[in-house]
């Protein structure tokens, strides 16, 4: 019962947050700029274009009325027309969102896969060199500018070693000569659905570098959280009992201690997903990854303001929904969360 009430309350709160987000985007888009119409009309607009934008935005109407119009359009998925591509922004979003989500999900998995075992290792060898090395690594991961890390990885793995592709989402031979049918928009899934296993390998190769860039920071966080959770659990009696029984060290660590230390994993999933959505803006442009991040960074250069507003809106809503799901999952895993 408590659980149902908790979930309901979180859902209602998230709905309010979405309304608030819409309002804030509206304010930043239409009130903060000195001349919103000029911003919406694109770079170097003519007087006519500005006048047209002024009428479309209905700038002479009262603020409340304009907000209602804005919110209605957003809810209906009407984000206007991109200045640069002259296409409906909604269509662009539909084309680019799966690529970003694929990258975000993959990098989140990668972060857990790197961070958790390292955290276990660091806790097991506390104060020893694996511990120190991974602490050092996680500090460095925080300080490393995402865009710079992306360039370094490109330099090492694509330029010097030549084992991974420099950029893009699929090799030219596939994307141009024999493109995948777009079913879900996730290349890995579409390739399996189309029965083309060789494309899965190609898609994976292209995913690794951008995903690794985005995974470095959350992996560091995952490592630190796992480490401290493990240190606490390794001192508990059931671990001592397992030791007394003569169980092997790996079995104690991964079989008995780690399952109890998995609480932080959910936190890291949320954080990592958020980081990937944000970092996408910086990483996708470097890896020519055709997702929302590249879309928005190209919009910045083209002064395509409606696109920036639309992407901010959509990504933030993804983010709010993701956080809600994680809170609910956390309450389901550990019902004590719902009580606090």
């Amino acid at each position, binding site marked *: 019962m408590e659980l149902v009430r908790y979930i309901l309350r979180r859902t209602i709160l998230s709905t309010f947050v979405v309304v608030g987000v819409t309002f804030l985007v509206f304010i930043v888009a239409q009130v903060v700029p000195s001349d919103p119409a000029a911003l919406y009309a694109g770079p170097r607009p003519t007087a006519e274009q500005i006048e047209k934008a002024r009428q479309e935005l209905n700038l002479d109407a009262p603020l409340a009325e304009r907000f209602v119009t804005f919110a209605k359009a957003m809810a209906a998925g009407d984000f206007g027309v991109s200045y640069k591509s002259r296409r409906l922004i909604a269509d662009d979003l539909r084309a680019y969102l799966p690529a970003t989500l694929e990258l975000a999900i993959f990098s989140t998995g990668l972060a857990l896969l790197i961070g958790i075992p390292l955290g276990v290792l660091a806790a097991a060898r506390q104060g020893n060199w694996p511990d120190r090395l991974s602490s050092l690594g996680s500090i460095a991961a925080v300080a490393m500018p995402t*865009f710079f890390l992306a360039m370094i990885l490109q330099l090492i793995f694509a330029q010097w070693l030549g084992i991974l592709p420099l950029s893009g989402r699929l090799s030219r031979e596939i994307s141009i000569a024999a493109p995948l049918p777009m079913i879900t928009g996730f290349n890995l899934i579409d390739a399996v659905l189309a029965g083309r296993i060789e494309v899965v390998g190609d898609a994976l190769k292209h995913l690794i570098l951008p995903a690794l860039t985005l995974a470095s920071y959350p992996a560091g966080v995952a490592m630190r959280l796992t480490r401290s959770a493990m240190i606490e659990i390794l001192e508990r009696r059931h671990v001592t009992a397992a030791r007394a029984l003569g169980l092997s060290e790996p079995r104690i660590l991964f079989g008995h201690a780690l399952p109890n230390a998995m609480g932080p994993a959910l936190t890291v999933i949320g954080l990592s997903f958020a980081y990937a959505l944000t970092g996408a803006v910086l990483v996708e442009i470097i890896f020519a990854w055709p997702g929302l991040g590249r879309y*928005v960074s190209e919009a910045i250069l083209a002064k395509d303001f409606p696109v920036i507003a639309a992407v901010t809106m959509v990504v933030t809503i993804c983010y709010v929904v993701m956080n809600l799901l994680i809170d609910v999952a956390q309450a389901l895993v550990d019902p004590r969360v719902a009580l606090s």
Partner: protein
Amino acid sequence: MTRLVHRLGWPGTIAFGVVLVFVLLAVLAPWIAPYPGQGAGAPNVAAKLLPPSADYWLGTDHLGRDVLSRVIYGARVSMTNGILIVLFALLIGLPIGLAAGYFGGWIDEALMRGTDVFLAFPALLLAVLMAAALGPGFLNSIIAVAVTWWPWYARLARAEVLVLRGQPYVEAARLAGVSHPRIIIRHILPATGRPLTVQAALDVGPALLTAAALSFLGLGILPPTADWGQMVDAGRKFFPARWWYSAMPGLTIFIVALAFSILGDALRDRKGGANRASA
């Protein structure tokens, strides 16, 4: 010196030294930079994209300017960015957090739900939207990042006030008929100030990183003023063949952010507990 090492440990002391060096580089740029004119933006087309050499220690950029001088001049913008972002964020967040914590009730509810809305955004995206709305430029990019930064200080200040509000000396002041604004400013602010200042000092590094990301995207200060993030972006066209152009400013951002982060850890773990810090 030995006291500093004792208090911060060796990594913290070295990090402190690095930060100090960059502050000095920023302040003394015109006297330290080997080519002050180029650092400030004057082109030198005879020496385009030269690799690091005795004349140009970190190579030259696509306009022939000395990358070392540009990096040193960039310290002015980038360090100021970090400090001003945190300062602006404090200016917004502190009053909101103080009011929410002190008055409680519906004021608290309204202010904190508003804060939640700001926190619902992926920070960089909100900064991008804000910067795009304001247009590029030094001050605008700082405001854009500060807008995403203040909610943390509002929350921190509120949490501090909630503890202080029940303290006997605050109750005494209230019973003595001291007005609300006066209690907040004279009796609560000084006590919340210290933990917040420490936090703000630690945030300069991350703030600087966010500002660098914004200027990498072309929303920061406009050329020809040197800025690290913008240099990395400009050098991307020549990467990796002319790697130094992007790599040097990129590495500089990393070193400075790393120094701030290690210094922050050292301050947090320092011997003698948190309260003795500012002595």
